[in-house]
């Protein structure tokens, strides 16, 4: 990485560190959302279908606690993606005019978005372990990380296409409806309905549900779907930002 890009990354992080309320919210909201969900949910029995097709009897409390992690990470990462890219669209063109390449201007924005997602994910996982330990950490962490990155990129695209206010409306609604309702094993017959498989939260949620409640990994298909979403959205965001910043 060249000096200009690393300077821009450093400045990007410094800009975020000057916003103490944002840091407090990114640390406090996962803690409050997840611990509150465990505290208020009854341990009613619930039969769910795991990605391998196996039926499992668990409790509403465990499912709610586990599913609140991707809802929280997706929601917060989506809003971060929205406003970070809005900020890039407003000001990074000046960097390009001053001699930066579009790539050198884009990397710091994406670095901030990914870092915010990792911070929220780390806090969310730490809070979750107080009340619930997944059967397999790897898929559980990977599913939640994918949910955060996918929604961060969706937020970035939302900001570019529907603006700041429209993007905020969309990012208040989409993660809640996708991960919180359509993919949530608390509802329907304990597995996503057919239409839900077309939504971006399908792959990540099935991967993390497998990790949460199974010691074997049977979510290869959903993992592939999630990775396709991630790659497709990454390409879309990079192309969009390069075009907006005047790149070819």
């Amino acid at each position, binding site marked *: 990485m060249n000096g200009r890009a690393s300077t821009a990354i450093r400045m990007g992080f410094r800009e975020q560190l000057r916003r103490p309320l944002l840091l407090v919210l990114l640390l406090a909201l996962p803690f409050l959302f997840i611990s509150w969900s465990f505290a208020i949910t009854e341990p*009613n029995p619930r039969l769910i279908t795991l990605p391998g097709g196996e039926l499992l009897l668990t409790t509403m409390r465990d499912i709610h606690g586990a599913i609140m992690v991707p809802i929280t990470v997706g929601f917060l990462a989506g809003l971060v993606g929205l406003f970070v890219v809005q900020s890039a669209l407003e000001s990074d063109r000046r960097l390009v005019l001053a001699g930066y390449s579009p790539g050198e201007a884009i990397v710091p924005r994406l670095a901030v978005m990914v870092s915010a997602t990792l911070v929220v994910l780390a806090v969310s996982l730490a809070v979750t372990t107080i009340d619930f330990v997944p059967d397999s950490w790897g898929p559980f962490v990977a599913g939640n990380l994918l949910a955060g990155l996918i929604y961060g990129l969706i937020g970035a695209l939302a900001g570019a296409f529907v603006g700041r206010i429209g993007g905020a409306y969309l990012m208040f609604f989409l993660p809640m409806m996708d991960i919180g309702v359509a993919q949530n094993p608390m509802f*329907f017959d304990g597995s996503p309905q057919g239409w839900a498989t077309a939504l971006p939260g399908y792959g990540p949620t099935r991967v993390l549900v497998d990790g949460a409640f199974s010691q074997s990994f049977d979510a290869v298909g959903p993992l592939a779907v999630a990775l396709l979403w991630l790659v497709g959205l990454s390409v879309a965001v990079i192309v969009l930002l390069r075009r907006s910043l005047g790149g070819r």
Partner: protein
Amino acid sequence: MNAIALGGADFLREHLRARLTLALLVAIPALFVVASASVLGEFATALGGSVSGDSASALGAGWAAAFLAGALGFFQVSSSREADRRLALAGMGAARVAVARISASVALGVLISAVAFLTLLLSAGVTHPAHAFVAILIFALTYIGIGTLVGSFVSGALEGSLTVAFIFLIDAFSGPGMSDSGGIAQAMPTRKAADVLIDAGAGQGSPVGDWIAVGLIALGALALAAATFWLSARPRST
């Protein structure tokens, strides 16, 4: 009066200038009501609450109106602070700017509430439609007040959006029919509106005391929003 009407119409046009924003304001409440109708009863049971069936669907309409109105109220203040001050200095005056802003916000709140209500009516049916509509509108007005209040303290768009979302989720999760917890849940801003909405969904009227309470809460929220707009637009002495 003419300046206020003109200002209000312009503020409305400013917010809806992007066609997609208008489309989202119509589509999101409708989709939220339809999607949540089938699961809210189950969710309430998981939280130890009692709301179910049409009452749960009705509550979803109130929530849809609330979270959109909260974001709307926040952005009405945060994105217009400088422009409003200039308008006030240019002769419109802070009070008229505030009235025009509040009129635009209420008009958008009515739009969101009407979409949520009509979706509820078409998808689940409501025995007390007038009660249900008023209760949904109270949700929206309450959150316009909350959003503008947040906007007056928090200038960053990301921080403000997160704060509004935080208040909404705590309010929704601890509301009547959901976890039904005591203490702080009793002080939640939409508690009385939710009581009225749940009753309307179940085909029952609400006690006079509940109507007085929701009326006072709505008036308080609007007064709060008007005061916030006025303080934002008020010229500063240098």
